[in-house]
């Protein structure tokens, strides 16, 4: 069975679930959700045992679909986040249904599967057409998902904002694709790289195309100044969708960005250095514009949104460091590593938020007051999550940041590095503000907070992953550098 079949199967499963819901209206959402999770888990298992080389793919898709370590990693990544989001949806279902018109959530289980398939395709894309098609599949699905709880004014508002800005970015993306195509005469990444290595290619056109294209992609990964949608949409969207956006959609954006930059900044590219400068500027700006406003947030969900912008900034800076000379991980590898550490901590954070909502609490920092008393375990797990997001050593979050800093320092990008350092310092402030709230003792005569056994298990596992990756990252690194020296390893 080839990897490609798994993805197709996943999309088909999504459709089947829709049909099931349509024709058997009394089917419980638990069944639906568990089926979706089971399907995605099966896909994950199959992904690990499926042959892992492009040659195993059917010949007709090989021109636009590839299987390298980057693709495989992101496919697995997409599956893991999809499983977690589906499970989170189930966990949050009781309060989510209050905001849907018919009290049902069927699409919330089927659409993520389709989104997941879309992200997996994106991870393998070899040309811009594929990227565009898969990206739009994901984006349109997200329009629906974000506005899903439309009885909530916030969700609807988030839906509108995401829609308008998303469509705008699509326009920019297509315009960028047009110009890149115009400059290089091809849509495939390999072809673009080859054309850009040719001095005869018009540099201005290529630069223009690349700039516009990167703006379009920058929107997807929440790079400044295309990040304004993030706080509003993250805050308004249902929490599982926010988690999905912030981890899944962002990762998908970064895999495409990695591919595009591999082409733009390949050896001998005529526009390589300009793109690098662009990344440094944008990355620094993103890290700062994510961190600074976050310090004033009172809503934790919004705070996490800003933090995700800031993390995008570090990732962009990582991408700017192309040949990290004395490093096993290439820039794409660093990004993959960072995202792999970003996944558990962000999901854990949103999981905590979801659990609090499920217990009838809000998402403000003041709602966190005394969490340690209400539920010490949850407080500890959230502490681990936030500490890792802040980049505290011995948690996974630190290593990702360390690699970024190492890369920047190795290249001597001190300006960008100081911006990243300032952003990280601000990060310490707002994450620890939240942690502090959890442990305050004053005014906390509120009832205890409970959550289910599976939730404990999942949250505990995520926290454990954060800690283990923080002190033993070797397995992850070896996955990223195992047998595919061409892409991830230098």
């Amino acid at each position, binding site marked *: 069975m080839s990897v490609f079949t798994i993805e197709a199967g996943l999309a088909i499963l999504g459709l089947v679930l829709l049909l099931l819901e349509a024709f058997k209206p009394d089917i419980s959402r638990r069944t639906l959700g568990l089926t979706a999770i089971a399907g995605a888990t099966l896909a994950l298992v199959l992904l690990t045992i499926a042959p892992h080389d492009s040659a195993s793919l059917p010949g007709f898709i090989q021109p636009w679909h590839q299987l390298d370590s980057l693709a495989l990693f992101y496919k697995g990544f997409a599956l893991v986040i999809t499983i977690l989001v589906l499970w989170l949806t189930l966990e949050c279902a009781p309060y989510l249904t209050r905001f849907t018109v018919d009290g049902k959530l069927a699409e919330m289980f089927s659409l993520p599967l389709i989104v997941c398939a879309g992200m997996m395709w994106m991870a393998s894309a070899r040309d811009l057409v594929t990227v565009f098609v898969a990206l739009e599949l994901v984006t349109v699905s997200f329009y629906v998902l974000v506005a899903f709880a439309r009885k909530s004014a916030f969700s609807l508002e988030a839906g509108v904002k995401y829609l308008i800005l998303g469509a705008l970015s699509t326009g920019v993306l297509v315009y960028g694709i047009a110009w890149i195509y115009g400059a290089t005469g091809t849509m495939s990444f390999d072809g673009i790289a080859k054309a850009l290595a040719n001095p005869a290619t018009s540099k201005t056109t290529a630069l223009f195309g690349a700039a516009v294209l990167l703006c379009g992609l920058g929107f997807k990964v929440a790079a400044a100044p295309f990040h304004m949608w993030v706080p509003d949409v993250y805050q308004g969207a249902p929490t599982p969708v926010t988690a999905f956006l912030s981890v899944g959609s962002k990762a998908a954006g970064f895999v495409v960005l990695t591919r595009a930059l591999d082409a733009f900044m390949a050896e001998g590219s005529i526009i390589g250095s300009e793109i690098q400068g662009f990344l440094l500027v944008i990355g620094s700006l993103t890290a700062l514009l994510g961190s600074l406003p976050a310090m004033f947030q009172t809503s934790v969900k919004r705070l996490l949104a800003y933090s995700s912008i800031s993390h995008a900034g570090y990732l962009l800076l990582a991408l700017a460091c192309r040949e990290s000379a004395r490093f096993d991980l290439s820039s794409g590898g660093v990004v993959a590593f960072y995202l792999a550490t970003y996944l558990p901590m962000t999901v854990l954070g949103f999981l905590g938020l979801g659990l609090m909502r499920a217990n009838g609490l809000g998402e403000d920092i003041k709602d966190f007051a005394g969490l340690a008393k209400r539920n010490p375990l949850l407080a*500890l797990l959230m502490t681990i999550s936030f500490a890792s997001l802040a980049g505290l*050593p011995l948690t996974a979050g630190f290593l990702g940041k360390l690699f970024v800093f190492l890369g920047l320092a190795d290249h001597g990008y001190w300006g960008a590095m100081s911006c990243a350092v300032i952003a990280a310092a601000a990060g310490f402030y707002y994450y620890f503000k939240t942690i502090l709230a959890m442990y305050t003792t004053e005014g906390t005569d509120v009832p205890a907070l409970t959550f289910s056994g599976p939730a404990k298990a999942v949250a505990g596992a995520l926290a454990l992953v954060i800690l283990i990756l923080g002190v033993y990252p070797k397995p992850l690194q070896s996955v990223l550098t195992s047998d595919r020296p061409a892409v991830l390893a230098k």
Partner: protein
Amino acid sequence: MSVLELIIALPLLAALAIWLGAPARAASLGATFINLILVLYTAVQYWGKTGLAFTHSRPILENPSLSFAVGADGISIILALLTALVMLAAIWQIEDRPPIFYVSSLLIGGGALGAFLTTDVFFIYAFHELALIPTFLMIALHGRAEPAQRKAVAWKATIYLGVGSLVLLAGLVWLVLEFSGGSKLTFDLEALRSQAKLNPLPDAKQAQIFFVLLLGFGSLVSLFPFHSWAAPAYATAPTPVAMLHSGVLKKFGLYGLIRIALPLLPQGAHVEWVQNALLLMLLGNILVMGLVTIHASRLDNTLANSSVMHMGYIFLGIAAGTEIALKGAVILMFAHGISIALLFGLCGRMRNQLGTLEYNKLGGLATHAPAFTVLFAFGSFASIGLPGLTNFAGEVLIFLGNFTEFKAGVLTNLQWTVILALWGVVMSAVYMLRAYRSIFHGSPATGLFMIDPVFSQRVPFIMLATTLLVTGCCPWLLLNLMKSAL
């Protein structure tokens, strides 16, 4: 499994056990007591040895090469001993407090032990950060002030320390990049050292890196002018936290300079602009903070500011960089840790019993609490630098170490600084004696009553005071551990 790993793990495991429901006091006291014995065992084992011992390494990442590597030389053992002693005392003196006090003390102590006993830059840095979190939380949550104020104090400290740590991280990253050599980045301190010995950097570059490290490590040690977090933080912190942070954790920055910066950048501190900057800053510590301490009108402020001031002397030892001065610096680190922990511990007791630490409200406590007075005297006279208590040995070695390179008639900047710094010794006598006079001497103030703690409550302080006396009379015990460390 090295004994050092056990030493690091024990407090952390105890903290975990308490979180899971183990009896807090018994578990934490048991763990710290065993820890002290283990540290003493390592000290005995190390006696007469040189170089790194008890090494053990577990790789966690190939390239960049990171490994959980432990190892100890004399300096680490002395600081581990300091940690074990202060941790035991700090935990012992906790009374009627929720388990979080024990957990945080264990975490701070465990973090400090980890920082002192690992030999991988990554973990040295990481363990210190780990210890900062409980410090921050405890000040913000259980500090001795109104909630808003203690939170502000906690934030101030955390922002300083956080930014300092980031600057430090930048410096460490720079070091790693410069000294990794070959094709592989490594965080292993020994590897970096050997590379630094093989291919030393040009002086100008050493100076730059050293300065970055100095700023980073310096703000962790409240180097002037990055010190203004320290005094309010210590004055506000709950007693065990004040004891552990000022006594132990703060020494991390100095340890880092001695352990990482100086061996890798031997010329860094001697390049003129760096040295002059360092000397100015440490004079700020000694003279400015000395005067500020004199101005303090409450015991906790006096102690907190004095702790900032005394760091100046240790920096002076580092600035000299000679063997004698560095050994003096290590001894002073040990001595200051013990004495300030003793003083903060006693100060905490006083605050609990009296409710105030204002000098003009206190007086004559010696009449009713003689044992307490004697213990306090040990702490304050140690901090003044009285011979026979450890601080003196450290200070005098630092001063002497600055004069080993001497041209008659021509004093270097370093030596002028020593002479100015010596005035600080006078100032520290001024404020400590004033404190002692206001609190213990004179006729007992009305309405304030205090009695000696019972013997079992006295034990932790007696332990610290005895340490001061023993190592003060026999500083060669410590010096022998450091035969070749520098």
